[in-house]
């Protein structure tokens, strides 16, 4: 490859004096030159800037002329403005696409495809030129930007109204109404509360939501004087959980009751963590278990073991594949979005309730969008103009 790079401009200059000159002459189109009469050459070569990137990339596409002898391989040759040629790649015959990722933004390059036969250049395609550039807005994501902006505006607007003290309603959420009871029960029985924040790290929004709920639960256990155990599967989550629980105990006026060692890291390993938590369950026999966060296959391993020690279990996750197992094995399950509503529900803070109202408005927007899309698609089957509307709506929600 490196040898080719060095040798090739020379080779090209030898066999293609005409082409080199033509390029230098001011971009006159060069006809495809089959040097050996019968070899297949690339035709319809196009070069274009790769869209929606930070530049530096030019896409080349071509077709192979199917008449004639199949070349052994083909090469992509780039000429920079000074006319210096560079073989970017040698590709197997039959390739019809190449991406030049070494272009400099703003420089006009000329490309051609050469066909090799028996180690020699046997044919050359027409040339094509392109300039790489960077874009300021991703054209395939404008629809999403618009919708996301609307949603964000709605949510932030309702948070503001919430702050201003407008009375906001929130419906009953079974699993959350039971939090007090669960902690109370553990207190009566003199057994600990076990809080499992899922197996993902702090960058996961479900873990973040779980940490917020943990703060509320910690305050309750502090008030009731019950032990709270938090085994985690991530170091950062452990750190955050320690902070959050400490703060909860502080707010409840019981900073002395906070035991740092009760919030411990086990292992990053999914099933190693499950084994460890199962062990804690059967040995500590918690009376209440919270499983809130992101869970994968370990969900049922934990929930069934928790069930077997007789704990009251409150689970919640937005992982659609794991919800069925929590529904089957736990007393209460927060389904999907209910997990994210928990902090608002438990704290009744106006700004958080406002955020919930904003989420509802956003869902209403989507419902309207779906209904419109369905109507347009259905009517569009019989009345073409409506099909255009349906296509427009689908384009709007398409993200590249």
């Amino acid at each position, binding site marked *: 490859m490196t040898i080719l790079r060095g040798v090739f401009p020379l080779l090209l200059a030898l066999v293609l004096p005409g082409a080199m000159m033509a390029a230098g002459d001011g971009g006159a189109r060069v006809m495809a030159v089959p040097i050996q009469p019968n070899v297949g050459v690339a035709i319809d070569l196009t070069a274009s800037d790769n869209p929606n990137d930070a530049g530096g990339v030019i896409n080349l596409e071509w077709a192979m002329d199917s008449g004639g002898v199949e070349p052994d391989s083909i090469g992509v040759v780039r000429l920079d403005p000074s006319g210096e040629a560079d073989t970017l790649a040698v590709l197997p015959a039959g390739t019809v696409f190449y991406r030049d990722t070494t272009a400099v933004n703003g420089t006009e390059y000329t490309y051609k495809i050469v066909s090799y036969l028996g180690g020699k250049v046997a044919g050359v395609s027409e040339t094509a030129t392109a300039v790489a550039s960077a874009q300021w807005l991703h054209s395939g994501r404008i629809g999403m930007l618009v919708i996301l902006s609307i949603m964000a505006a709605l949510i932030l607007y309702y948070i503001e109204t919430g702050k201003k003290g407008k009375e906001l309603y929130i419906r009953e959420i079974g699993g959350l109404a039971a939090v007090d009871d669960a902690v109370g029960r553990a207190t009566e029985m003199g057994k600990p509360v076990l809080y499992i924040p899922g197996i993902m790290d702090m960058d996961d929004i479900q873990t973040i939501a779980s940490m917020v709920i943990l703060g509320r639960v910690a305050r309750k256990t502090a008030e009731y004087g019950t032990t709270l155990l938090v085994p985690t599967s991530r170091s950062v989550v452990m750190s955050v959980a320690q902070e959050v629980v400490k703060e909860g105990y502080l707010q409840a006026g019981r900073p002395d009751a906070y035991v740092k060692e009760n919030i411990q890291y086990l292992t990053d390993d999914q099933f*190693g963590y499950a084994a460890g938590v199962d*062990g804690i369950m059967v040995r500590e026999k918690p009376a209440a278990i919270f499983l809130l966060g992101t869970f994968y296959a370990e969900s049922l391993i934990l929930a069934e073991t928790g069930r077997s020690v007789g704990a009251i279990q409150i689970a919640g996750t937005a992982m659609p594949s794991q919800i069925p197992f929590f529904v089957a094995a736990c007393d209460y399950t927060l389904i*999907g*979005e209910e997990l994210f509503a928990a902090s608002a529900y438990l704290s009744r803070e106006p700004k958080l309730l406002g955020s919930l*109202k904003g989420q509802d408005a956003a869902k209403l927007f989507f419902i309207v969008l779906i209904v419109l*899309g*369905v109507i347009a698609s259905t009517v569009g*089957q019989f009345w073409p103009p409506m099909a255009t509307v349906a296509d427009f709506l689908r384009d709007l929600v398409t*993200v590249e």
Partner: protein
Amino acid sequence: MNWEILGIWLGAAVTLCLYSFLYRDNPFYKFVEHLFVGMSAGYWVIYSIYNVLIPNWWENLFPADGGFDAIWLVPGIFAMFMLARMVPKVAGLSRLALGMIVGTGAGLNMVTFFQSNALAQVKGTMISVAAGSVWEVFSSLVLVVGVVSGLVYFFFSKAHTGFVGRTANMGITILMVAFGASFGYTIMARLSLLIGRCTFLIEDWLPTIPAMLGLGG
């Protein structure tokens, strides 16, 4: 010493010890559970060093062709902030690292969830409900009504009474059917895992027992 057979025995031993948990908690399970936690924790530390810290950080900080890329000091400093938690005096610095982790995660999650969990699903639901046979029309209707009523179930700021209540009820109904189906469907994959372990014990481990006895006797 035959390392391969020893490996099979190690694997079989830990497998059987872990399965003993199904009967009840016992010293064998406790032993292997503690071993599992320790070994896997060690595994992930080594994994992080060799698969992230060295290639993604160290080799960027000190590129192979010599030199020093100062910008890669930034993550190093943030990681130090995180580890500062171990020293009570400067533990507060870890908040800076946490801010970065949570911010990056929040921004990234927001766009990816919005793209693949919201928009892609909305798009998939924008279908014609008048195409094909009566059965297909019915199916399409169930799909659309299911998605919409399911979303209504998640309304928090409206009391679930009247029309909203009836729709939300329909939503939770569809959700229950979906959860049941998903549960029933997954059983097969879970059984496959057990079949895999049993096959290991029966076909890989059991045949080595005579050999071990032969060696011993």
